[in-house]
Protein backbone atom coordinates (compact mmCIF):
# COMPACT_ATOMS: atom_id res chain seq x y z
CA UNK A 1 0.00 0.00 0.00
CA UNK A 2 2.82 2.35 0.93
CA UNK A 3 4.46 1.51 -2.39
CA UNK A 4 1.28 2.38 -4.21
CA UNK A 5 1.04 5.75 -2.48
CA UNK A 6 4.70 6.39 -3.26
CA UNK A 7 4.13 5.62 -6.96
CA UNK A 8 1.02 7.81 -7.01
CA UNK A 9 2.98 10.77 -5.66
CA UNK A 10 5.98 10.21 -7.89
CA UNK A 11 3.92 9.90 -11.04
CA UNK A 12 1.53 12.74 -10.29
CA UNK A 13 3.72 15.57 -11.51
CA UNK A 14 4.95 13.84 -14.70
CA UNK A 15 1.34 13.15 -15.69
CA UNK A 16 0.33 16.74 -14.95
CA UNK A 17 3.26 17.96 -17.05
CA UNK A 18 2.05 15.66 -19.82
CA UNK A 19 -1.27 17.46 -19.55
CA UNK A 20 0.23 20.93 -19.50
CA UNK A 21 2.59 20.35 -22.42
CA UNK A 22 0.43 17.95 -24.45
CA UNK A 23 -3.26 17.88 -23.65
CA UNK A 24 -3.86 21.56 -23.00
CA UNK A 25 -1.88 23.03 -25.93
CA UNK A 26 -3.41 20.45 -28.24
CA UNK A 27 -6.91 21.26 -27.02
CA UNK A 28 -6.38 25.03 -27.12
CA UNK A 29 -4.88 25.08 -30.61
CA UNK A 30 -7.54 22.75 -31.99
CA UNK A 31 -10.33 24.68 -30.33
CA UNK A 32 -9.10 28.04 -31.61
CA UNK A 33 -8.74 26.80 -35.19
CA UNK A 34 -11.94 24.81 -34.88
CA UNK A 35 -13.92 27.86 -33.79
CA UNK A 36 -12.78 29.91 -36.77
CA UNK A 37 -13.74 27.00 -39.00
CA UNK A 38 -17.04 26.60 -37.18
CA UNK A 39 -17.94 30.27 -37.67
CA UNK A 40 -17.23 29.97 -41.38
CA UNK A 41 -19.27 26.78 -41.63
CA UNK A 42 -22.13 28.29 -39.61
CA UNK A 43 -22.26 31.30 -41.94
CA UNK A 44 -22.16 29.02 -44.97
CA UNK A 45 -24.97 26.98 -43.48
CA UNK A 46 -27.03 30.18 -43.05
CA UNK A 47 -26.33 31.26 -46.62
CA UNK A 48 -29.27 31.57 -48.98
CA UNK A 49 -27.12 30.01 -51.69
CA UNK A 50 -28.13 26.36 -51.64
CA UNK A 51 -24.82 25.08 -52.94
CA UNK A 52 -22.94 26.90 -50.20
CA UNK A 53 -25.27 25.78 -47.43
CA UNK A 54 -25.27 22.28 -48.91
CA UNK A 55 -21.49 22.07 -48.63
CA UNK A 56 -21.69 23.14 -44.98
CA UNK A 57 -24.45 20.64 -44.31
CA UNK A 58 -22.40 17.85 -45.86
CA UNK A 59 -19.32 18.72 -43.85
CA UNK A 60 -21.25 18.79 -40.57
CA UNK A 61 -22.91 15.50 -41.44
CA UNK A 62 -19.62 13.73 -42.17
CA UNK A 63 -17.90 15.05 -39.05
CA UNK A 64 -20.75 14.16 -36.76
CA UNK A 65 -21.44 10.86 -38.44
CA UNK A 66 -17.96 9.34 -38.19
CA UNK A 67 -15.91 8.46 -35.11
CA UNK A 68 -13.21 10.88 -34.08
CA UNK A 69 -10.75 8.02 -33.76
CA UNK A 70 -11.39 7.02 -37.36
CA UNK A 71 -10.89 10.64 -38.50
CA UNK A 72 -7.62 10.72 -36.59
CA UNK A 73 -6.41 7.46 -38.10
CA UNK A 74 -7.37 8.49 -41.63
CA UNK A 75 -5.25 11.59 -41.31
CA UNK A 76 -2.24 10.05 -39.57
CA UNK A 77 -2.12 6.48 -40.90
CA UNK A 78 -4.20 6.82 -44.05
CA UNK A 79 -2.90 9.95 -45.73
CA UNK A 80 0.70 8.66 -46.17
CA UNK A 81 -0.66 6.17 -48.71
CA UNK A 82 -1.68 9.08 -50.92
CA UNK A 83 1.66 10.75 -50.36
CA UNK A 84 0.79 13.09 -47.51
CA UNK A 85 2.88 12.34 -44.46
CA UNK A 86 2.19 14.42 -41.37
CA UNK A 87 3.82 14.36 -37.95
CA UNK A 88 1.72 13.31 -34.96
CA UNK A 89 1.10 16.83 -33.67
CA UNK A 90 -0.08 18.40 -36.94
CA UNK A 91 -2.21 15.34 -37.62
CA UNK A 92 -3.84 15.59 -34.22
CA UNK A 93 -4.47 19.33 -34.52
CA UNK A 94 -6.00 18.93 -37.98
CA UNK A 95 -8.28 16.11 -36.88
CA UNK A 96 -9.45 17.81 -33.70
CA UNK A 97 -9.94 21.19 -35.43
CA UNK A 98 -12.07 19.61 -38.14
CA UNK A 99 -14.06 17.85 -35.46
CA UNK A 100 -14.67 20.99 -33.41
CA UNK A 101 -15.51 22.82 -36.65
CA UNK A 102 -18.38 20.43 -37.30
CA UNK A 103 -19.87 20.40 -33.83
CA UNK A 104 -19.38 24.06 -32.93
CA UNK A 105 -20.81 25.18 -36.29
CA UNK A 106 -24.26 24.07 -35.21
CA UNK A 107 -23.88 25.81 -31.85
CA UNK A 108 -22.82 29.06 -33.49
CA UNK A 109 -25.55 28.86 -36.10
CA UNK A 110 -28.18 28.47 -33.40
CA UNK A 111 -26.67 31.32 -31.40
CA UNK A 112 -26.72 33.65 -34.42
CA UNK A 113 -30.34 32.74 -35.08
CA UNK A 114 -31.21 33.46 -31.45
CA UNK A 115 -30.41 37.16 -31.86
CA UNK A 116 -33.63 39.02 -32.78
CA UNK A 117 -33.97 40.16 -36.40
CA UNK A 118 -34.46 43.73 -35.19
CA UNK A 119 -30.83 43.81 -34.14
CA UNK A 120 -29.71 43.21 -37.73
CA UNK A 121 -32.12 45.89 -38.90
CA UNK A 122 -30.93 48.38 -36.30
CA UNK A 123 -27.41 47.75 -37.57
CA UNK A 124 -28.47 48.25 -41.18
CA UNK A 125 -30.37 51.40 -40.43
CA UNK A 126 -27.32 53.05 -38.90
CA UNK A 127 -25.54 52.26 -42.16
CA UNK A 128 -23.75 49.02 -41.38
CA UNK A 129 -23.00 46.39 -43.98
CA UNK A 130 -24.10 42.84 -43.14
CA UNK A 131 -20.49 41.98 -42.27
CA UNK A 132 -20.12 44.89 -39.88
CA UNK A 133 -23.50 44.20 -38.30
CA UNK A 134 -22.49 40.58 -37.81
CA UNK A 135 -19.18 41.50 -36.21
CA UNK A 136 -20.29 44.44 -34.07
CA UNK A 137 -23.89 43.62 -33.22
CA UNK A 138 -24.77 39.99 -33.75
CA UNK A 139 -21.71 37.98 -32.75
CA UNK A 140 -21.19 39.71 -29.38
CA UNK A 141 -24.76 38.79 -28.48
CA UNK A 142 -24.47 35.31 -29.97
CA UNK A 143 -21.29 34.78 -27.93
CA UNK A 144 -23.20 35.10 -24.69
CA UNK A 145 -25.69 32.46 -25.73
CA UNK A 146 -23.07 30.08 -27.02
CA UNK A 147 -20.71 30.04 -24.05
CA UNK A 148 -22.38 27.14 -22.20
CA UNK A 149 -22.66 24.80 -25.21
CA UNK A 150 -19.21 25.75 -26.50
CA UNK A 151 -17.76 25.08 -23.06
CA UNK A 152 -19.24 21.62 -23.36
CA UNK A 153 -17.53 21.18 -26.69
CA UNK A 154 -14.23 22.36 -25.25
CA UNK A 155 -14.37 20.10 -22.22
CA UNK A 156 -15.21 17.13 -24.44
CA UNK A 157 -12.27 18.07 -26.60
CA UNK A 158 -9.88 18.15 -23.66
CA UNK A 159 -10.81 14.57 -22.85
CA UNK A 160 -10.90 13.46 -26.49
CA UNK A 161 -7.28 14.52 -26.94
CA UNK A 162 -6.42 11.30 -25.06
CA UNK A 163 -7.07 9.62 -28.41
CA UNK A 164 -3.99 11.39 -29.73
CA UNK A 165 -1.92 8.98 -27.60
CA UNK A 166 -2.80 6.40 -30.26
CA UNK A 167 -0.99 8.38 -32.93
CA UNK A 168 2.07 8.85 -30.74
CA UNK A 169 1.42 12.35 -29.40
CA UNK A 170 2.96 12.71 -25.95
CA UNK A 171 0.11 14.01 -23.83
CA UNK A 172 -1.38 13.29 -20.46
CA UNK A 173 -2.69 9.83 -21.17
CA UNK A 174 0.39 8.65 -23.08
CA UNK A 175 2.59 9.60 -20.11
CA UNK A 176 0.24 7.70 -17.83
CA UNK A 177 0.27 4.65 -20.13
CA UNK A 178 4.05 4.57 -20.09
CA UNK A 179 4.18 4.75 -16.30
CA UNK A 180 1.49 2.08 -16.01
CA UNK A 181 3.27 -0.27 -18.39
CA UNK A 182 6.57 0.29 -16.64
CA UNK A 183 5.22 -0.17 -13.10
CA UNK A 184 2.50 -2.69 -13.80
CA UNK A 185 0.10 -0.62 -11.59
CA UNK A 186 -2.62 -0.16 -14.20
CA UNK A 187 -5.54 0.46 -11.87
CA UNK A 188 -3.70 3.02 -9.78
CA UNK A 189 -2.16 4.96 -12.65
CA UNK A 190 -5.26 5.03 -14.84
CA UNK A 191 -7.37 6.22 -11.90
CA UNK A 192 -4.74 8.86 -11.27
CA UNK A 193 -4.93 9.94 -14.92
CA UNK A 194 -8.72 10.14 -14.62
CA UNK A 195 -8.36 12.27 -11.50
CA UNK A 196 -6.00 14.66 -13.25
CA UNK A 197 -8.35 15.01 -16.26
CA UNK A 198 -11.10 15.78 -13.81
CA UNK A 199 -9.00 18.45 -12.06
CA UNK A 200 -8.25 20.08 -15.41
CA UNK A 201 -11.95 20.11 -16.24
CA UNK A 202 -12.83 21.62 -12.87
CA UNK A 203 -10.52 24.52 -13.65
CA UNK A 204 -12.09 24.91 -17.10
CA UNK A 205 -15.61 24.85 -15.65
CA UNK A 206 -14.80 27.68 -13.28
CA UNK A 207 -13.35 29.58 -16.23
CA UNK A 208 -16.69 29.07 -17.98
CA UNK A 209 -18.57 30.51 -15.00
CA UNK A 210 -16.35 33.58 -14.96
CA UNK A 211 -16.83 34.11 -18.67
CA UNK A 212 -20.60 33.72 -18.38
CA UNK A 213 -20.71 36.22 -15.56
CA UNK A 214 -18.74 38.73 -17.60
CA UNK A 215 -20.95 38.32 -20.66
CA UNK A 216 -24.10 38.58 -18.57
CA UNK A 217 -23.34 42.07 -17.33
CA UNK A 218 -25.71 43.67 -19.81
CA UNK A 219 -28.65 41.39 -19.10
CA UNK A 220 -31.29 42.05 -16.45
CA UNK A 221 -30.74 39.53 -13.66
Amino acid at each position, binding site marked *: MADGWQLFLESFWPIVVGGLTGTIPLALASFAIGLVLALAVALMRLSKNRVVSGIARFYISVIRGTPLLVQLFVIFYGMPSIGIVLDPWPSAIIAFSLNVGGYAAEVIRAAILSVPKGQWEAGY*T*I*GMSPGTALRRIILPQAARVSVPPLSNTFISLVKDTSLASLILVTELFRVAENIAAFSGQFMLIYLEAALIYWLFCLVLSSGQSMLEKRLDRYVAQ
Partner: protein
Amino acid sequence: MSRSDPNNSGDPGRRDDERRADVPGGDPLAPSETPDDSVLLTARGIRKSFGDNEVLRSIDLEVRRGEVVVLIGPSGSGKTTVLRSLNGLETPDAGTIDFEGGPSLDFAAPIAKASRFALRDRSAMVFQQHNLFPHMTVIENVIEGPVRVQRVPKPQAIAEASALLDRVGLADKRDAYPFELSGGQQQRVGIVRALALKPRLLLFDEPTSALDPELVGEVLQVIKELADEGWTMVVVTHELGFARQAADEVLFMDGGVVVERGAPAQIFTKPTEERTRRFLDRILRPLDEDGSDSPDST
Protein backbone atom coordinates in the same frame (compact mmCIF):
# COMPACT_ATOMS: atom_id res chain seq x y z
CA MET B 1 -27.90 51.27 -63.49
CA SER B 2 -30.35 52.80 -61.13
CA ARG B 3 -28.35 55.99 -60.79
CA SER B 4 -28.29 56.76 -64.48
CA ASP B 5 -31.99 57.29 -64.82
CA PRO B 6 -32.82 55.87 -68.26
CA ASN B 7 -36.08 54.48 -66.93
CA ASN B 8 -37.31 57.69 -65.49
CA SER B 9 -37.31 59.69 -68.67
CA GLY B 10 -40.09 57.49 -70.00
CA ASP B 11 -42.31 58.19 -67.03
CA PRO B 12 -44.77 60.92 -67.93
CA GLY B 13 -46.10 61.17 -64.39
CA ARG B 14 -43.00 62.86 -63.07
CA ARG B 15 -42.54 66.57 -62.92
CA ASP B 16 -39.39 67.95 -64.40
CA ASP B 17 -38.43 70.22 -61.54
CA GLU B 18 -38.15 67.22 -59.21
CA ARG B 19 -35.62 65.60 -61.41
CA ARG B 20 -33.30 68.52 -61.69
CA ALA B 21 -31.38 67.58 -58.59
CA ASP B 22 -30.38 64.28 -60.20
CA VAL B 23 -29.19 65.77 -63.44
CA PRO B 24 -25.96 63.99 -64.35
CA GLY B 25 -22.89 66.15 -64.14
CA GLY B 26 -23.79 67.92 -60.94
CA ASP B 27 -22.21 66.67 -57.73
CA PRO B 28 -25.01 64.65 -56.20
CA LEU B 29 -23.72 65.13 -52.68
CA ALA B 30 -23.13 68.85 -52.79
CA PRO B 31 -25.60 70.81 -50.71
CA SER B 32 -28.00 72.29 -53.17
CA GLU B 33 -29.29 75.82 -53.04
CA THR B 34 -32.86 74.75 -52.93
CA PRO B 35 -35.56 76.68 -51.10
CA ASP B 36 -36.42 75.45 -47.64
CA ASP B 37 -39.63 73.71 -48.53
CA SER B 38 -38.23 71.92 -51.56
CA VAL B 39 -39.07 68.27 -52.06
CA LEU B 40 -36.71 66.01 -50.14
CA LEU B 41 -38.10 62.65 -51.08
CA THR B 42 -40.48 61.37 -53.70
CA ALA B 43 -41.81 57.84 -53.79
CA ARG B 44 -43.99 56.81 -56.70
CA GLY B 45 -45.96 53.67 -57.40
CA ILE B 46 -44.44 51.65 -54.55
CA ARG B 47 -45.70 48.08 -54.64
CA LYS B 48 -44.80 45.23 -52.38
CA SER B 49 -46.09 41.72 -51.88
CA PHE B 50 -45.12 39.13 -49.33
CA GLY B 51 -45.96 35.89 -51.06
CA ASP B 52 -49.57 36.17 -52.15
CA ASN B 53 -50.25 39.01 -49.77
CA GLU B 54 -50.18 42.32 -51.60
CA VAL B 55 -49.20 44.73 -48.85
CA LEU B 56 -48.67 47.88 -50.89
CA ARG B 57 -50.62 48.59 -54.08
CA SER B 58 -49.02 51.63 -55.60
CA ILE B 59 -48.17 54.16 -52.94
CA ASP B 60 -47.20 57.74 -53.80
CA LEU B 61 -45.53 59.87 -51.20
CA GLU B 62 -43.83 63.23 -51.27
CA VAL B 63 -41.95 64.68 -48.35
CA ARG B 64 -40.84 68.29 -48.33
CA ARG B 65 -37.96 69.65 -46.32
CA GLY B 66 -38.99 70.35 -42.74
CA GLU B 67 -42.31 68.64 -43.22
CA VAL B 68 -43.88 66.15 -40.82
CA VAL B 69 -45.82 63.46 -42.63
CA VAL B 70 -47.88 61.15 -40.44
CA LEU B 71 -49.17 57.78 -41.65
CA ILE B 72 -52.23 56.45 -39.87
CA GLY B 73 -54.43 53.48 -40.55
CA PRO B 74 -55.46 50.08 -39.20
CA SER B 75 -52.81 47.48 -38.55
CA GLY B 76 -51.93 45.55 -41.66
CA SER B 77 -52.64 48.55 -43.85
CA GLY B 78 -49.00 48.73 -45.00
CA LYS B 79 -47.84 51.85 -43.11
CA THR B 80 -44.78 50.17 -41.65
CA THR B 81 -43.87 48.62 -44.99
CA VAL B 82 -43.88 52.08 -46.57
CA LEU B 83 -41.53 53.33 -43.90
CA ARG B 84 -39.22 50.33 -44.18
CA SER B 85 -39.09 50.75 -47.94
CA LEU B 86 -37.90 54.34 -47.50
CA ASN B 87 -35.03 53.06 -45.35
CA GLY B 88 -34.11 50.17 -47.63
CA LEU B 89 -35.14 47.56 -45.07
CA GLU B 90 -37.68 46.28 -47.56
CA THR B 91 -37.15 46.22 -51.29
CA PRO B 92 -40.35 47.13 -53.11
CA ASP B 93 -41.36 45.03 -56.11
CA ALA B 94 -41.97 48.12 -58.20
CA GLY B 95 -41.94 51.88 -58.00
CA THR B 96 -39.34 54.60 -57.63
CA ILE B 97 -37.80 56.44 -54.72
CA ASP B 98 -35.93 59.66 -55.38
CA PHE B 99 -33.96 61.32 -52.65
CA GLU B 100 -33.06 64.91 -53.38
CA GLY B 101 -29.36 65.12 -54.14
CA GLY B 102 -29.02 61.41 -53.51
CA PRO B 103 -29.98 58.07 -54.86
CA SER B 104 -32.70 57.61 -57.40
CA LEU B 105 -33.98 54.07 -57.27
CA ASP B 106 -36.22 52.29 -59.74
CA PHE B 107 -37.32 49.01 -58.24
CA ALA B 108 -38.41 47.59 -61.58
CA ALA B 109 -34.79 46.48 -61.97
CA PRO B 110 -32.63 44.81 -59.32
CA ILE B 111 -31.23 47.44 -56.98
CA ALA B 112 -27.50 47.75 -56.49
CA LYS B 113 -26.37 47.39 -52.90
CA ALA B 114 -24.69 50.77 -53.06
CA SER B 115 -27.97 52.53 -53.81
CA ARG B 116 -29.68 50.88 -50.89
CA PHE B 117 -26.87 52.04 -48.63
CA ALA B 118 -27.19 55.53 -50.06
CA LEU B 119 -30.85 55.48 -49.05
CA ARG B 120 -29.91 54.52 -45.49
CA ASP B 121 -27.22 57.17 -45.38
CA ARG B 122 -29.88 59.81 -45.71
CA SER B 123 -32.53 58.55 -43.37
CA ALA B 124 -32.54 57.05 -39.90
CA MET B 125 -35.15 54.85 -38.35
CA VAL B 126 -36.65 54.70 -34.87
CA PHE B 127 -38.23 51.31 -34.27
CA GLN B 128 -41.29 50.31 -32.33
CA GLN B 129 -39.18 48.00 -30.17
CA HIS B 130 -36.33 50.48 -29.85
CA ASN B 131 -33.84 47.76 -30.96
CA LEU B 132 -31.05 49.23 -28.91
CA PHE B 133 -27.91 47.12 -28.83
CA PRO B 134 -28.17 45.39 -25.45
CA HIS B 135 -24.45 44.70 -25.15
CA MET B 136 -23.52 48.36 -25.45
CA THR B 137 -24.02 51.21 -23.02
CA VAL B 138 -26.23 54.15 -23.95
CA ILE B 139 -23.34 56.26 -25.21
CA GLU B 140 -21.86 53.31 -27.12
CA ASN B 141 -25.22 52.74 -28.78
CA VAL B 142 -25.35 56.35 -29.91
CA ILE B 143 -21.78 56.66 -31.23
CA GLU B 144 -21.71 53.26 -32.95
CA GLY B 145 -23.05 54.58 -36.26
CA PRO B 146 -21.06 57.82 -36.36
CA VAL B 147 -17.78 56.14 -35.34
CA ARG B 148 -18.00 52.78 -37.13
CA VAL B 149 -19.88 53.79 -40.25
CA GLN B 150 -19.40 57.52 -40.75
CA ARG B 151 -15.82 57.51 -39.42
CA VAL B 152 -16.37 60.46 -37.11
CA PRO B 153 -13.45 60.78 -34.65
CA LYS B 154 -14.48 59.18 -31.39
CA PRO B 155 -14.02 62.22 -29.10
CA GLN B 156 -16.15 64.31 -31.42
CA ALA B 157 -18.81 61.60 -31.63
CA ILE B 158 -18.90 61.32 -27.85
CA ALA B 159 -19.23 65.09 -27.45
CA GLU B 160 -22.09 65.25 -29.94
CA ALA B 161 -23.79 62.20 -28.45
CA SER B 162 -23.53 63.65 -24.95
CA ALA B 163 -25.11 66.89 -26.09
CA LEU B 164 -28.00 64.99 -27.70
CA LEU B 165 -28.52 62.83 -24.61
CA ASP B 166 -28.54 65.96 -22.51
CA ARG B 167 -31.25 67.41 -24.73
CA VAL B 168 -33.58 64.49 -24.14
CA GLY B 169 -32.82 64.51 -20.43
CA LEU B 170 -30.66 61.38 -20.34
CA ALA B 171 -27.23 62.83 -19.66
CA ASP B 172 -26.94 60.84 -16.44
CA LYS B 173 -27.73 57.55 -18.20
CA ARG B 174 -24.87 57.63 -20.69
CA ASP B 175 -23.03 54.71 -19.11
CA ALA B 176 -26.10 52.62 -18.32
CA TYR B 177 -26.99 49.50 -20.27
CA PRO B 178 -30.35 49.52 -22.08
CA PHE B 179 -31.89 47.00 -19.67
CA GLU B 180 -31.38 49.48 -16.84
CA LEU B 181 -33.66 52.05 -18.50
CA SER B 182 -37.42 52.44 -18.57
CA GLY B 183 -39.23 51.89 -21.85
CA GLY B 184 -39.58 55.62 -22.43
CA GLN B 185 -35.90 56.20 -21.74
CA GLN B 186 -34.96 53.37 -24.09
CA GLN B 187 -37.03 54.89 -26.84
CA ARG B 188 -35.50 58.32 -26.27
CA VAL B 189 -32.07 56.73 -26.64
CA GLY B 190 -33.36 55.13 -29.84
CA ILE B 191 -34.27 58.60 -31.09
CA VAL B 192 -30.88 60.00 -30.11
CA ARG B 193 -29.16 57.11 -31.89
CA ALA B 194 -31.02 58.09 -35.04
CA LEU B 195 -30.27 61.82 -34.59
CA ALA B 196 -26.56 61.16 -34.10
CA LEU B 197 -26.37 60.00 -37.70
CA LYS B 198 -27.42 63.50 -38.79
CA PRO B 199 -29.94 62.14 -41.26
CA ARG B 200 -31.92 64.32 -43.60
CA LEU B 201 -35.03 62.33 -42.86
CA LEU B 202 -36.20 60.73 -39.64
CA LEU B 203 -38.47 57.71 -39.84
CA PHE B 204 -40.54 56.70 -36.82
CA ASP B 205 -42.21 53.29 -36.85
CA GLU B 206 -44.93 53.36 -34.17
CA PRO B 207 -42.44 54.77 -31.69
CA THR B 208 -44.85 54.66 -28.74
CA SER B 209 -46.89 51.52 -29.46
CA ALA B 210 -44.76 49.28 -27.27
CA LEU B 211 -44.73 51.66 -24.32
CA ASP B 212 -46.75 51.71 -21.14
CA PRO B 213 -49.37 54.46 -21.43
CA GLU B 214 -47.72 56.71 -18.84
CA LEU B 215 -44.46 56.69 -20.82
CA VAL B 216 -45.96 57.68 -24.16
CA GLY B 217 -45.98 61.38 -23.38
CA GLU B 218 -42.27 61.79 -22.76
CA VAL B 219 -41.44 60.18 -26.10
CA LEU B 220 -44.04 62.11 -28.08
CA GLN B 221 -42.77 65.30 -26.47
CA VAL B 222 -39.27 64.67 -27.84
CA ILE B 223 -40.60 63.92 -31.31
CA LYS B 224 -42.78 67.02 -31.21
CA GLU B 225 -39.79 69.17 -30.27
CA LEU B 226 -37.78 67.75 -33.14
CA ALA B 227 -40.64 68.53 -35.49
CA ASP B 228 -40.81 72.09 -34.19
CA GLU B 229 -37.07 72.44 -34.78
CA GLY B 230 -37.61 71.71 -38.42
CA TRP B 231 -36.54 68.08 -38.71
CA THR B 232 -38.11 66.35 -41.67
CA MET B 233 -39.91 63.22 -40.59
CA VAL B 234 -42.29 60.48 -41.56
CA VAL B 235 -44.13 59.06 -38.57
CA VAL B 236 -46.25 55.93 -38.39
CA THR B 237 -48.41 56.21 -35.29
CA HIS B 238 -51.72 55.49 -33.64
CA GLU B 239 -51.45 58.65 -31.55
CA LEU B 240 -54.00 60.79 -33.30
CA GLY B 241 -53.55 63.65 -30.85
CA PHE B 242 -49.91 63.80 -31.79
CA ALA B 243 -50.74 63.62 -35.49
CA ARG B 244 -53.15 66.48 -35.10
CA GLN B 245 -50.62 68.71 -33.35
CA ALA B 246 -47.43 67.89 -35.18
CA ALA B 247 -48.34 66.78 -38.69
CA ASP B 248 -48.20 68.95 -41.77
CA GLU B 249 -49.81 66.21 -43.78
CA VAL B 250 -51.71 63.12 -42.69
CA LEU B 251 -52.04 60.05 -44.89
CA PHE B 252 -54.72 57.54 -44.06
CA MET B 253 -53.82 54.10 -45.38
CA ASP B 254 -55.96 51.01 -45.62
CA GLY B 255 -55.49 47.79 -47.56
CA GLY B 256 -52.21 48.86 -49.08
CA VAL B 257 -53.39 52.14 -50.59
CA VAL B 258 -53.50 55.72 -49.42
CA VAL B 259 -57.22 56.26 -48.98
CA GLU B 260 -57.06 59.91 -48.12
CA ARG B 261 -54.44 62.56 -47.54
CA GLY B 262 -54.55 66.11 -46.36
CA ALA B 263 -53.90 68.57 -43.59
CA PRO B 264 -54.67 67.18 -40.13
CA ALA B 265 -57.51 69.63 -39.62
CA GLN B 266 -59.21 68.35 -42.73
CA ILE B 267 -58.59 64.63 -42.10
CA PHE B 268 -59.64 64.71 -38.48
CA THR B 269 -62.62 67.03 -38.68
CA LYS B 270 -64.11 66.45 -42.10
CA PRO B 271 -62.73 63.35 -43.74
CA THR B 272 -64.16 62.84 -47.19
CA GLU B 273 -63.80 59.07 -47.28
CA GLU B 274 -66.13 56.74 -45.43
CA ARG B 275 -63.25 54.38 -44.53
CA THR B 276 -61.32 57.22 -42.91
CA ARG B 277 -64.35 58.25 -40.88
CA ARG B 278 -64.94 54.73 -39.64
CA PHE B 279 -61.29 54.28 -38.68
CA LEU B 280 -61.25 57.54 -36.74
CA ASP B 281 -64.48 56.62 -34.98
CA ARG B 282 -63.07 53.28 -33.95
CA ILE B 283 -59.97 54.88 -32.48
CA LEU B 284 -61.65 57.82 -30.82
CA ARG B 285 -64.58 55.80 -29.45
CA PRO B 286 -63.21 52.29 -29.07
CA LEU B 287 -66.02 51.06 -26.81
CA ASP B 288 -68.86 52.45 -28.85
CA GLU B 289 -69.18 49.52 -31.23
CA ASP B 290 -72.44 50.54 -32.82
CA GLY B 291 -71.09 54.00 -33.48
CA SER B 292 -68.13 52.62 -35.35
CA ASP B 293 -70.30 50.88 -37.89
CA SER B 294 -73.03 53.49 -38.30
CA PRO B 295 -71.87 56.82 -37.01
CA ASP B 296 -75.24 58.41 -37.72
CA SER B 297 -77.11 56.33 -35.15
CA THR B 298 -75.45 58.00 -32.16
